[in-house]
């Protein structure tokens, strides 16, 4: 009798032990973001979102006694640096997943390394075409340009009924070029004629000649695909030389600095955003409140995407019941209809995000819904 009880107890303990298969006490989450340089405003935003996400995840006990730990390095928006940082995170820090990098251009250089090493990557600001095509370990929660642009353009077309458009983009930057291509295709599909297209290169600060060329063709709307460093001067110089038509900005314009430093020139700007700070979603409102409390300023789209990436990752780890890289990858791919601050979130079969987007405009010095 005793022996039977003992063997039963042992069996239960063993089975129980196998099922509990505890997660490691510390789960290292890696991140590579642009923390210095022109694109730091995006990178720092994302980092703050991630840090808040990890803090809340650990406090919530979703992963039991396991705690997420962030290991983050500056990718300096440089391809070489991105490669070096990724290697470090994968081989030295042995993280379970990498969130980042900030720019699509950097990503094309360093993400293949993670794909090859079997480390999942979650992009929170990568919107260029071809990101998730790099491999089945690559995910993103930043709506790709091909997803946001047609919707934004449709909203603008409905209001202004433009027949002609002019485009300005940065020729030697992957994100900008990709966005310009998507816009060209969307404009054609919407039946709007692209009457002029000009570009500039890295380091340019005076765009007036290109803008004058665009304006000379008398378009009904202007489309600018710029990163934040150029976005503000482009806007200012456009208004300065007398452009009064509506201006549609790309994803790079989704940055509160556009309003802060662009001032009057930003008024009336239209941007296709994946998220809006005044969103009525209850998780979003809670996030905005905690973020503002912790950092003293309101979050932007990049912060909420960083924050949501953590939620997605933690959910995946919990479902997988493991911090194994391959298990996490499989679990991430299965995420469907997760309730997040971005709305109801799913990954599609290409590991791109599916959630509603919002065109917004700058009105009275603040972002407001565009309608």
């Amino acid at each position, binding site marked *: 009798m005793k022996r039977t009880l003992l063997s039963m107890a042992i069996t239960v303990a063993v089975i129980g032990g196998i099922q509990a298969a505890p997660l490691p006490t510390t789960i290292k989450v890696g991140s590579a973001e642009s923390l*210095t*340089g*022109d*694109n*730091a*405003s995006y990178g720092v935003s994302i980092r703050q979102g991630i840090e808040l996400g990890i803090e809340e995840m650990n406090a919530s006990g979703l992963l039991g006694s396991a705690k997420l730990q962030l290991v983050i390095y500056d990718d300096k928006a440089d391809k070489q640096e991105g490669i070096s940082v990724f290697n470090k995170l994968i081989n030295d820090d042995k993280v379970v997943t990498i969130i980042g990098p900030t720019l699509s251009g950097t990503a094309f250089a360093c993400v293949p390394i993670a794909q090859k090493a079997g480390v999942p990557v979650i992009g929170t600001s990568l919107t260029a075409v071809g990101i998730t095509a790099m491999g089945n370990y690559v995910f993103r929660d930043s709506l790709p340009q091909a997803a946001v642009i047609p919707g934004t353009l449709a909203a603008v077309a409905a209001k202004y009924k433009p027949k002609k458009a002019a485009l300005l983009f940065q*020729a*030697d930057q992957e994100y900008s070029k990709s966005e310009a291509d998507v816009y060209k295709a969307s404009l054609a599909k919407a039946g709007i004629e692209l009457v002029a297209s*000009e*570009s*500039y*290169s890295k*380091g*340019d*600060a*005076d765009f*007036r*000649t*290109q803008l*004058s*060329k665009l304006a*000379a063709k008398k378009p009904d709307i202007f489309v600018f695909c710029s990163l*934040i*460093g150029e976005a*503000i*001067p482009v806007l*200012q*110089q456009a208004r*300065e*030389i*007398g452009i009064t038509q509506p201006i549609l900005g790309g994803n790079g314009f989704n940055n509160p*600095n556009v309003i802060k*430093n662009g001032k009057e020139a930003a008024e009336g700007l239209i941007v296709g955003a994946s998220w809006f700070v005044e969103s009525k979603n209850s998780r979003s409102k809670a996030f905005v409140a905690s973020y503002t409390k912790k950092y003293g300023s309101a979050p932007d789209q990049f912060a909420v995407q960083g924050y949501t990436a953590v939620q997605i990752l933690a959910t995946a780890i919990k479902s997988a019941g493991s911090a194994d890289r391959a298990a996490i990858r499989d679990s991430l791919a299965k995420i469907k209809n997760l309730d997040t601050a971005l709305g109801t979130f799913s990954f599609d079969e290409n590991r791109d995000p599916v959630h509603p987007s919002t065109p917004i405009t700058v009105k009275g010095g603040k972002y407001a819904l565009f309608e």
Partner: protein
Amino acid sequence: MDLSLFQDPIFLAQNLVDGLSRGALYGVYAIGFTLIFGVLDILNLAHAATFMWCAFAGYLVMAEAELPLPLGLAAAMLAGAAIALLLELLAFRPLRREGADKLSAMISSIGASLILVSLAEAIFGAQTRRFPNSVLDPKPHFIGGAGGVRISNAQILILIASLVLMVAMGLFIRRTRMGKAIRAVAANQKAARLLGIDVNGVIVVTFLVAGALAGAAGILVALLTNNIVPGMGSQIELRGLAVVILGGMGNIEGAVVGGFILGLVETFTIAYVPGGSDIKDAIVFFILFIILLVKPNGIMGKLKADRA
């Protein structure tokens, strides 16, 4: 290829205005750069970082302390002179004393530039800054009414200021004793010393003047582009080098002429060449290459060759 642009006289005039103002900026920047080269035979690659710091100095004076433009310009030129003096005392003179070669001095200036830029990044961060509208009204004037040629207050200021500076520099170099002393040191340092010229003193004056010019350039560029960031020197640095080579190393008139040529070529390339904005750098350097094939010492010859 869109031929209608070629027939538009307003567009042509516009590009002349834009090209000349751009060229004037390059000229002011290049004079300081070429002066140091002419006198010391070294490329001061910290000139761009000095230029950037002066823009920030102007920003601090005009945006933070809210003082008017003339004071901001004066502050920038003083800052430029001060930084240039520091460069001479810390980065160049010690090497000269040891009899180091010109290459070491150039490398030293690269190091100084890195330090200056990193300091600016640490102190000011990556955020773009601009002067407030109170400094200079950014609303442009349209000559001949709304469809006419556009010229902004910044461009007017640039054209006037650069002309004044260039004329002043010319007079300074040709008509004053110090100017003569500078030319003597540029021609032959040893001989100048033997003639009783205080060579180190002359070098100090050269740096002060070059720095002040970098300061003026910094403010003028900042007024035109409204984009004050620690990295703003990198774009003009390459242009400055091209202008200096184009005009003749050490030649001040050459820097002026070279600046205007570069500004016009750049603007006309963007305006008239299809895909011009992508290849403007290639075109600028291609023209530089052609000119050097014909005139290896630059359009107006080296300062030294003049004197020989």
